[in-house]
């Protein structure tokens, strides 16, 4: 692989100190190539979301390296970093400011970065995620969950980042709505050659979206496998097998 878009080297994150300290992520390593979709799967408390939060700088006291295009990510993260890396959060009900019109939410990154043609960019971002331009004049409570998550994706894409971190982007949504949001994310990645790192507890979603998948439990990446291996259930680690078996249990009806 040439220089990866995103690389994590020996990333460790702990919370608290001394005896009450918890090692949330224990020496995690992975590389994500340009235009690739990489998935991290694990159960609650496995540390998967913590990795994304460390990459984006929300947890600043990590050990190890975060490299973007082979360059060490600055600490604290600076403006250039966020032009390259953006994040979409899990819960679209809490990630949009409830008292701000969608337009104001979308305007903020444009103002911070002093970009021009703001209204045109907002209209374009909304149409990219399948929303009509009128949605800019609504408040979050006037949108459904799926529409809000589309707005969150539009916000992340306004700065035209190359790397998108997706933290359980559809777990708060119904499956029918999830299908639409996943289709939008896939189409955008193909059209723009975006790089995704997607965290999820849902094996189906990760398998649909990602080509390589890391399996996490208790803060450690225990296995990394290709989506083909995942589908064919060729896993080495017992934990991965348990996870696949539990997720497949309900698939027998297919």
């Amino acid at each position, binding site marked *: 692989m040439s220089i990866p878009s995103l690389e994590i080297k020996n990333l460790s994150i702990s919370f608290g100190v001394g005896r009450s300290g918890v090692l949330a992520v224990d020496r995690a390593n992975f590389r994500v190539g340009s235009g690739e979709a990489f998935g991290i799967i694990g159960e609650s408390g496995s540390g998967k979301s913590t990795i994304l939060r460390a990459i984006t700088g929300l947890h600043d006291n990590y050990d190890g390296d975060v490299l973007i295009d082979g360059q060490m990510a600055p600490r604290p993260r600076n403006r250039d970093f966020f032009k390259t890396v953006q994040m979409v959060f899990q819960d679209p009900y809490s990630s949009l400011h409830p008292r701000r019109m969608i337009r104001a939410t979308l305007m903020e990154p444009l103002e911070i970065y002093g970009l021009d043609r703001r209204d045109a960019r907002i209209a374009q971002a909304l149409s990219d995620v399948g929303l009509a331009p009128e949605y800019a004049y609504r408040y979050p409570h006037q949108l459904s969950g799926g529409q809000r998550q589309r707005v969150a994706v539009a916000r992340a894409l306004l700065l035209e980042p190359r790397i998108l971190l997706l933290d359980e982007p559809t777990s708060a949504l119904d*499956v029918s709505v999830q299908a639409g949001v996943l289709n939008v994310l896939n189409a955008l990645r193909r059209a723009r050659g975006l790089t995704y790192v997607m965290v999820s507890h849902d094996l189906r979603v990760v398998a649909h979206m990602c080509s390589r998948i890391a399996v996490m439990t208790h803060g450690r990446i225990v296995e990394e496998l290709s989506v083909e291996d995942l589908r064919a259930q060729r896993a080495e680690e017992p934990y991965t097998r348990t996870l696949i078996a539990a997720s497949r249990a309900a698939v027998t009806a297919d």
Partner: protein
Amino acid sequence: MTDPLLEVRNLRVAYPSAHGYSDALRGISFTLGREKLGIVGESGSGKSTAGRAIMRLLPAKARVTADVLRLSDVDLLAARESEMRDIRGGRVAMILQDPRYALNPLKTAGSQIMESYRIHTKASRAEARDRMLAMLEDVHIHNPGRVAGLYPHELSGGMGQRVMIAMMLIASPEIVIADEPTSALDVTVRGQILEILNERVEAQGAGLILISHDLPLVSDFCDRVLVMYGGQVMEELAARDLSRARHPYTVSLHASLPPLDHAVEELIVPEYDPSWLTETTNEHPKP
């Protein structure tokens, strides 16, 4: 089948809104025997409202009507509130989604289970304690004495849900309504919890209503499935026939799930047809 445990005919629930009443349930009908019935639907389909209407737990402003809403010998719509208190937890029990919110945070697991038993029986404390410990063992808790003394925040999600199952089944109800009992749990724990629920319900000969948004899970677990949309039942089918579902809503819901064993280019996004709702008295519930 003998007389049904529960009979529901033309159940309607409406809430007051700016323009008169707006319907949450638009005339659903079903019966429940000693079996496992699944109610599947997406948010806003009315599936939880149905469960709560049976328990008469809807807010006072809700307007609930039905041709029949009967628990074997009791007319649930006409029952006095004092009768309902005996029925809730005693004859019809409800298991909720997240034990972290549904259990009382200030009482130990054991005392909550005992409370549920003593409200519905005349048992002494000592007797209730024995039953509670036996019940914890029945839900596969290996060290009942220790777990009984723990507070809800000290329990994992799976443990909490076992405690809730113990609490709900200790009074030997005739019907158990489980509203999304596993959706707050990790996938590897879900199976165990459903297995325990199944075991207890079968051992006690109760009827079970499993309310869920998870179509594969419900069809795997239940005998019969009602598929709900917009406050109406779209389709009723035997769970094993799910792959042969005929209603376009069920078919598209099934197809919108990303498949695990093969890749697809694009997922199918269900489209809704207003004609599915035979009554179009108010706006579409989900745009």
